[in-house]
């Protein structure tokens, strides 16, 4: 079924969106049908949409899922589109098609595309099906009473999950994706939000406002980063009766799952039993592999092993009957949900004339999950204290703030592996901690 068909069948009469503009489910469905009439020409074409507001975005995904062959969700930063993809904003300028020739019957399933940050630093498009995107959606009897705060951009995996969860369960969406923590909590409070999905880092900031207890939260979801026990404990103490879920989503494997027992990691017994139609295994390099129940998209298909598993490229360890996440095998650093490629930071450090060699890696942070740390080997005879500040300022000029090393260690030599490359082996890195 398509998104539109799902909602037509559900026949909700509640408010779908409570934002600058209010919009009920019947209004949303009507607007989506009209949009299809307006864009008969793009039927079975590949189109790209971006986000300006919730009503517009939800109308577009409802109209174009099951209508276009491919639906690209353009994130706010500019990511290059394949040549055959038309941007919806460009189509608006074209003459309107004669709606008399419109046939509103739906065709093949739409492929959804979302941009991900690849290990090389170049974003790549990953295809999803409507089925795979909605697998984690939970329909509970009281779901339609939930008022969801949208805290992420809906063109990203985590944000889209919130949008789809709310739409498919008859809940109400409130855009809380802008502003600082206090502003967001105020917006949640003013709009009677009772369900929030956010990164652990954002949850810590929301807790620091001291005002989160004003909210009557029924549903708490954590995603986008590894959820540690401290944040789960803090939230379950403050909201003992709320349903508390932490979500693991692998864009690489196009699959994910939720953990509901208020404990970090996931139960090790799932490695034997599987969970929510997924099978799990861990290889000898500590990578987590997932076997999704559906055939993944063709780009992923050649990465399947003989048993149909996909490498998530996430490192895990098993201790005390739990599987705990350690980070990305590629060394990509997750600073409060922002991905940092160590190679890019190393490249910038090496541009400084005093730097001979540099290695950038993740340092665990109880506030933002991970921070960027760097070991640098510099020319001898330089005042290291002055150089440290110089290097930070140099990085500030060439990198986003979250990419700048927060810790710089001057070292005599840096370990290289057998092929002469800097080692990103987790054991080598942990020696620095």
């Amino acid at each position, binding site marked *: 079924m398509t998104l539109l068909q799902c909602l037509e069948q559900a026949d909700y009469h509640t408010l779908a969106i409570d934002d600058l503009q209010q919009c009920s489910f019947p209004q949303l469905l009507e607007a989506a049908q009209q949009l299809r009439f307006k864009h008969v020409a793009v039927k079975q074409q590949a189109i790209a949409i971006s986000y300006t507001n919730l009503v517009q975005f939800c109308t577009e995904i409802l109209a174009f899922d099951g209508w276009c062959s491919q639906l690209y969700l353009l994130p706010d930063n500019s990511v290059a589109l394949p040549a055959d993809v038309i941007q919806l904003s460009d189509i608006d300028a074209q003459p309107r098609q004669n709606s008399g020739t419109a046939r509103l019957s739906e065709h093949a399933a739409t492929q959804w595309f979302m941009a991900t940050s690849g290990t090389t630093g170049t974003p790549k498009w990953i295809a999803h099906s409507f089925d795979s995107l909605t697998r984690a959606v939970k329909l509970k009897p009281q779901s339609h009473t939930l008022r969801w705060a949208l805290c992420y951009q809906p063109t990203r995996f985590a944000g889209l999950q919130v949008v789809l969860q709310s739409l498919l369960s008859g809940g109400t969406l409130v855009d809380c994706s802008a502003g600082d923590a206090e502003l967001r909590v105020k917006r949640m409070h003013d709009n009677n939000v009772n369900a929030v999905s956010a990164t652990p880092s954002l949850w810590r900031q929301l807790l*620091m406002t001291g005002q989160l207890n004003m909210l009557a939260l029924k549903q708490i979801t954590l995603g986008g980063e590894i959820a540690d026990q401290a944040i789960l404990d803090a939230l379950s103490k403050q909201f003992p009766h709320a349903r508390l879920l932490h979500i693991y989503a692998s864009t690489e494997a196009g699959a994910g799952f939720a953990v509901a027992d208020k404990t970090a990691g996931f139960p090790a017994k799932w490695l034997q039993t599987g969970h929510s139609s997924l099978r799990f295994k861990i290889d000898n390099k500590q990578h987590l592999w997932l076997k999704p129940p559906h055939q993944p998209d063709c780009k992923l298909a050649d990465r399947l092993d003989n048993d149909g598993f996909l490498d998530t490229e996430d490192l895990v360890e098993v201790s005390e009957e739990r599987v705990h996440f350690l980070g990305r095998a590629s060394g990509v650093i997750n600073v409060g949900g922002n991905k940092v490629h160590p190679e890019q930071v190393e490249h910038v450090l090496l541009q400084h004339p005093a730097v001979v060699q540099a290695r950038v890696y993740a*340092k665990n942070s109880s506030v933002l999950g991970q921070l960027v740390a760097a070991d640098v080997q510099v020319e001898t005879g330089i005042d290291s204290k002055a150089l440290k500040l110089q290097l930070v300022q140099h990085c500030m000029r060439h990198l986003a703030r979250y990419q700048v090393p927060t810790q710089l260690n001057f070292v005599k030599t840096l370990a290289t592996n057998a092929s002469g490359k800097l080692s990103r082996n987790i054991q080598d890195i942990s020696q620095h901690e």
Partner: protein
Amino acid sequence: MNIEQTIRDSLEQVALMANCQLIANINEDTVLLQSGLDSLGFAMLVAQLEEDLGVDPFSQMQIAVYPRTFGEFVSIYRQALQGG
């Protein structure tokens, strides 16, 4: 050891590194998120204090509430150091 002074010194140092402009006269009622330090600066402060004081009260947090003000932040470190 004066814990508050150590925290103030680290705060200045981190603000310089993180390129954050701290507000003048930070006192115990100053709201941390309005001190001029953003979430990255705050994360750096906690990391720096782990080196300076040897504790990170947020990593194994037993406290029920997150600090809102500078005073609450200092008191969490005081408790963590006395407890440990």
